[in-house]
Each structure stands twice: as C-alpha cells, then as structure tokens.
C-alpha cells in the first residue's frame, strides 16, 4: 500500500506506526494490570468492609435487634459501589438487608458457601459473622465494580489517547529529523537515475555518501554505469565497423522490417535493384518494385519473416524493362524483420548454361559412339564364337588323317613293310616328328576350343598332389634327360590334396614343366609343392627353372593365346603358343589362379594356386 509513496514518508510512517503500536500495547498492558489490581483491591476492600460490618453486627444478630442490624448495614451507604448486602441468621434466614426492605429482589434467599466471586461487573459473596470464634450468622455483600471499571476505562482511554498523541508528535518530529540520514543518499541516487534516464547520458555519476549499504549501492551503481558506458562505446564502434563493412560489401545487404520497408540497403543491393539506396530506404518493397508481392521470392521472404526461419534461394529477378538477372539470396530473420544477402550470379548462370549445352551435346555424341561400339563388340564376340566352333570341328577332322600318317610312318620306321635306306629313314623320321607336332597342335587347339565354347567337362574331386607330380616327372624325365637337365620334385612328407580335375591338373603341370624344359639349356627343373595356406585355404604348386627367364615387358602377354615370346635371334623353340593360355584357362575353371615371377637370364617360377581339399584324400 506504501509502494508508490516516497521513501521519506515510508520511513516516517513506519516509525510512527511502530510508536503507536508500542504505545497502545503498553497502554493495553497497563490497563490489564490496572484492571487486575482493581479487582484485587475491590476484593480486599469488600472483604475488609464485610468484616467490619460482620463484627459490628454480631450483637444485633445475637440479640435479634433488626433495626440495629439494618442501621449497621445502612452505614454501607457511604460506599456507593455496594449494591446490596444482607445478614442471615444461624438458620440461614434473612435477618436484615441493605438497602432495608428490598430483601427478595437484590439478595439471595439463603446463604451459600463463604467466599467472594466476580460475576460480571459484580463482586458478590458470603462471609461468616462470628463472635469469639462462634458463628452467629452470614453476611452477604454485592459490590458493583462496573461503574469503577467504566470510570477507570475512560480515564485510561483518555490517558492512552493523550500518550499516543504525544508519542506520535515526538516520533514524528524525531523521525523527520532522522529520516534524512536514510533518504538523502537514496534521493540523490534516485535523482541521478532520473537524470540519466531523461538525458540518456551514462557519463553521469551518483554522489557517494559514506560506506553503509546505500554507499555500497552508490559505488556499485557507479561501477555499473562505467560498465554500461564502456560497453556502449564498444557497441557503437562495433556497429560502425559492421555498418562500414556492410556498406562496402560486394554482396548486396538489405534489412526489411515487418511492414516490408527497407531499413537498410547497401550500395551493392541498390545497384542490384537498379535503384539508388536513398530511393529505397523507408519505402516498402511493393512501392519500389510494383508487383513483387506476387512473386515466389516474395512468398519465400514472407515465410521467413513469419516463421522466423532462414532460407537460401536462387532467384531470377525480372526488371520492369523485360530484362532479368539471377541472384543468390540468403535470407535470415533479424530483429527488425529479415536480413537478406544477395549475390549477383547472372554471369555464372550464363556460363553454367553454356556448359550445360556443351555437356548435353557431348552426351549425345558419347551415346552414338557407345551404340556403335556395342554393335562392333557384338560382332566381334559372335565371330569369336564362330571361330571356336570352327576350330572344334576342324581340329577333330584334322586329327583323323594325322593318326593315319603317324601310324603308318611308325610302321614304316619299324621296317615292318621292308627295309629302309638311311636317307628314307631320316626323311620318314622328319615326317613322324612333324606329324606329332601337328597332332599336339591340334590337341591343344581342340582343348582351347572346348574351353572357349564351354564344352570341357571337369570332374572335380580331391586329388593327391604328390601322385600327380610323380606321374608328371616320370612322363617328362626322358625329355629332360635328353637335354641333360635335372628334373626333380620338392614335396612335403605328408599328403597334400586339392579339389581339382585330375586330368586337368596333370595337363597343367605337364604344360608348365614342358615349357620349363624347352626354355632351359642347363640346370634344373623343380616342381615344388607347398602345404595348404591356412589363411586362403589354397595349395601352391610351383614349377621352377633355371632357364632364360622372361623380360618384364613380356610378362603381360604371357598367358594370352598364340603368344610366343621372342627368346632371342634364333626361333628354335617348338610350341603351339597355346600351353600357358590353356593352363591359365584350366586353373581358372578349377577356381584357382596362376602367377609368374621371372628374372631375365636367370630363370622363371610359375605358381599355380588351387583350392585345398576339405578332408584327407583317399589313399
């Protein structure tokens, strides 16, 4: 209730209130004390008065002198507070009353127990009338203290009123003098605050008044002002720098308020709109660019403004004269409304357009070429297939007459038809050799053809490698021995089995070993068997020679069909050129791979990797 009252009056009011309350409380305590005293005093007085009356009236009672008794009681008249009194005889009958003759109205018919009690504003009670300790009767007294109480109350109230008034006056005078101590510094502080608010001048300072709480408040307030001043300066500087930055930015900046008015537009933005900044500021977008409120850009801006969200859009802005420009816009909600950063991307858009056109053109060309290539590829594949089919048929047809040539040449060389001279024998051997070479060529061709036409049938099963290697060694030993080469195997003591087609494995190893023998003039050929590689679960079989080796540039073509490598000036190595190609195809069909390591002039190492058999192979 005192919220808007000046502090000066609050201090005075609270002191006054306190004084009044304390004064009234004291008055109350005094009044209660006075009341209790009065009761006590009245009781004592009544009892004393009663004793005097009782003592004096004993003879009157004893000798039944009623007028005398009434006379004695009549003396009570001197005390106007006594409302009634009575004397009862030994039998409890009324003997005399005061006031005389008012017996039944004011006094009880018969006495009760001795003692006085307060009943309302009356003190009533009985006391014994005795002579020489002998009870002669009972005295009744009715003492009305109501009047006294009323008198006391009013006099107390008058005193209370007077004292309260005096207390109020003294408290008011004192508090008026004392409140200055509290209110002066506060008023000064409030005055400073009002000045600062009115002038918005934060360089003002409050005057300090000592070191109490208000003094501390003043110091704190001044410190806060200094802080505000410093911060404001920093803010102004920062804002100036920011505005300068915005003004000179290459990107267009504009701030639009909630009424679509331009609050801020930098030169770039104005230039982008083909207007002067002064013409835009303070006007609405709709005024400056009539019809803009129907564009999708405006809808986007409105969405950002209403939902306080940001957006990033590329927009083609149509000028009034029919031309247009492309802009990249970054829209952010701002305190005033929205903040729009715009970048002129018209040039970029033109380049992009050109690039796009070129790309489309290129894609068309690529598609044409691809179609051509697909046709060519299909043609090539079809001819390849025809070649394989042709080869398969022709090889078979070719082999049949050769068997006759080889057979009969053998027969003639065994001299079964008749004796041969040396020249005949020599020529026949040449025929036989050539025929055998032709046969092997045809066999290889047949195999290649079978593989390529997918007609080769494989029976994959666990195969014990040692046994196959032994067979290969036995088969090739004569050829190796003939060239003075050492043919050997390096195998582990335990069985190693692979999952393969036995005939194919044998053929691969023979092919590789044959090659090795062919390209080695001296030294050794070694077939090396390794244990199962735990990681890949493959078995490696290598054929190692000490021959001519292979040049690095030739390694790539090594496994291609009909590729025979130039080994030197003289081309005297026999071979179809299909051996390695066949071996590779077979290994791949068996789910393995083939690799070669070679150092030219020092030897080669061909390694075949095949899947290991899952369990021990049959013995």
């Amino acid at each position, binding site marked *: 209730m005192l919220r808007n009252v000046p502090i000066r009056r609050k201090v005075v009011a609270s002191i006054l209130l306190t004084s009044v309350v304390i004064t009234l409380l004291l008055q109350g305590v005094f009044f209660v004390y006075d009341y209790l005293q009065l009761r006590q005093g009245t009781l004592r007085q009544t009892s004393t008065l009663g004793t005097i009356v009782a003592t004096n009236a*004993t*003879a009157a009672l*004893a*000798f039944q*002198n009623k007028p005398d008794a009434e006379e004695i009681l009549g003396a009570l008249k001197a005390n106007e507070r006594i409302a009634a009194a009575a004397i009862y005889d030994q039998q409890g009958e009324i003997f005399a009353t005061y006031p005389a003759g008012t017996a039944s109205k004011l006094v*009880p*018919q*018969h006495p009760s127990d001795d003692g006085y009690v307060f009943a309302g504003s009356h003190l009533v009670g009985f006391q014994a009338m005795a002579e020489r300790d002998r009870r002669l009767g009972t005295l009744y007294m009715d003492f009305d203290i109501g009047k006294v109480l009323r008198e006391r109350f009013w006099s107390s109230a008058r005193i209370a009123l007077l004292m309260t008034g005096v207390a109020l006056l003294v408290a008011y005078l004192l508090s008026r003098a004392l409140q200055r101590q509290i209110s002066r510094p506060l008023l000064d502080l409030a005055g400073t605050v009002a000045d600062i608010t009115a002038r918005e001048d934060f360089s003002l300072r409050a005057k300090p008044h000592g070191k109490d709480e208000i003094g501390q408040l003043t110091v704190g307030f001044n410190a806060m002002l200094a802080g505000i001043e410093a911060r404001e300066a920093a803010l102004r500087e920062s804002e100036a720098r920011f505005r300068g930055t915005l003004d000179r930015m290459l990107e267009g900046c504009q701030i639009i308020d909630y009424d679509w008015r331009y609050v801020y537009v930098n030169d770039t933005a104005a230039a982008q709109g083909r207007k002067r900044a002064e013409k835009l500021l303070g006007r609405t977008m709709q005024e400056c660019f009539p019809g803009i409120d129907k564009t999708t850009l405006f809808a986007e801006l409105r969405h950002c403004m209403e939902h306080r969200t940001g957006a990033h859009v590329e927009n083609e802005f149509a000028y009034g004269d029919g031309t247009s420009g492309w802009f990249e816009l970054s829209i952010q909600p701002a305190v005033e409304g929205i903040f729009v950063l715009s970048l002129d991307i018209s040039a970029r858009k033109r380049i992009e357009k050109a690039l796009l056109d070129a790309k489309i053109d290129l894609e068309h060309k690529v598609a044409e070429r691809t179609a051509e290539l697909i046709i060519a590829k299909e043609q090539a594949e079809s001819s390849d297939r025809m070649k394989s089919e042709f080869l398969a048929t022709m090889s078979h047809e070719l082999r049949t007459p050769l068997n006759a040539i080889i057979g009969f040449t053998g027969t003639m060389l065994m001299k079964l038809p008749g004796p041969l001279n040396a020249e005949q024998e020599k020529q026949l051997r040449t025929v036989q050799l050539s025929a055998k070479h032709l046969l092997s060529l045809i066999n290889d061709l047949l195999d290649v053809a079978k593989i390529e036409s997918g007609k080769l049938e494989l029976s994959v099963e666990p195969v014990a490698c040692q046994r196959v290697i032994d067979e290969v060694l036995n088969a090739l030993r004569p050829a190796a021995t003939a060239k003075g080469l050492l043919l050997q195997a390096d195998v582990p003591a335990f069985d190693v089995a692979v999952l393969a087609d036995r005939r194919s494995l044998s053929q691969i190893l023979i092919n590789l070993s044959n090659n090795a023998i062919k390209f080695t003039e001296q030294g050794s050929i070694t077939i090396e068997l390794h244990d199962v590689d735990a990681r890949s679960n493959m078995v490696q079989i290598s054929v190692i020679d000490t021959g001519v080796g292979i040049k690095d540039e030739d390694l790539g073509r090594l496994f291609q069909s009909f590729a025979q490598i130039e080994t030197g000036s003289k081309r005297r190595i026999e071979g179809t050129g299909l051996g390695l190609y066949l071996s590779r195809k077979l290994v791949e069909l068996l789910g393995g791979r083939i690799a070669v390591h070679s150092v030219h002039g020092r030897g080669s190492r061909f390694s075949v990797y095949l899947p290991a058999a899952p369990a021990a192979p049959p013995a």
Partner: protein
Amino acid sequence: MAFLMKHTWLAAVFSTLLFTMLPCGMLCSPQARAAALQEYQVKAVFLFNFTQFVEWPPAASPNTAEPIFICILGEDPFGAYLEDAIRDEHVDNRTLAVRRLSTADDAQACRILFISRSESARVETILQHVKPLPALTVSDARGFGERGGMVGFVTEDNRVRLRINLEAARAAGLTISSKLLRVADVVANQGASR
C-alpha cells in the same frame, strides 16, 4: 448472580422440608402458648449469648474444672430451652451448665443469675445479697435495670429488648461489650441509688 438465584430456590425448598420435620412441640402448639414459649426460647438463647458479649473478672468461677454455671433463681420459666441453648456450647473451653437455685445464698458459682418473675417482689433484697459476687444479674421483672439489676428483659411488640444498667455491671467488675450496648437501652438506678 444467576447461580445465587438458583441456590435461592433450592434453599427455599430445603428449609420448607426442614421446618415440616421439626418436633411438634415447637410448631403444633396453640398460638398463645407458642408465643410464650417462643419468648422464653429467645430469652434462653439471650442468656447464653451474654457469655459472648460480657467480660467477667478472673475471680469469677475460677475453678476451670467446673462448667460455667447459668443459674435460675425462683420459678423456672424456661423448661428445657435453656439446656437446649447451651448444649454442645463452650466458653473459654469450658462447658456450660444450668443450676436452679432456691435461695440467693447458693449463687456463689454463678456467672449469670437469672432472677425469675416469681421473685419480682424481692428483687432489691436478692440484688443486695449477690452484690459482692461477679455475676451478671438478669431478669424480666418489671423495671429490673432501674431497680439496680444489670440486664432487664423487656418485651415490646413481641420482641425481647434489653435494658442494661451499666453502673451496676461496673460495680460488679463486669465489662459489657459496646456491641451489646448498641443493641440495648442503657438505664440508670432509680430510688436505691439515691
């Protein structure tokens, strides 16, 4: 005062019951006899009451082992009233007793000597006889106080009133309480003292 009022009607009922149960001799007798009886009943109580309001000299009935005697000289008008009045009463821790005398010579131990109306003619002689004794002389004989007696009973308007001859009491060494004097008429000697 409400509680007192409540007690008042209770007390009224109680006293009514009490009176209906009193002995017949006190209430059922004819009016005249009742008045006479009542007169002596009052006088008997008064005789006892004198012991409360009169101071005797120490020489009076000094034998503390004996009761204090109230004596009746002449024809006894009290019947049993006097005995009723003193029954269970004590004065200075001594019991009381009634002694009926035929002659004044027997009045030596009496504190109170009631001279009956039957001795009215010989009052002066009797008083003369008991003068040295510290006894309170009481009588309802006509003009007893004026004739030198100490306390005279006078019946006026059916009320027993007292006439006290202070001079006679002082002469016998008795002190009469001022409270008793308040309720009595004080008289002086006539004739005899002149």
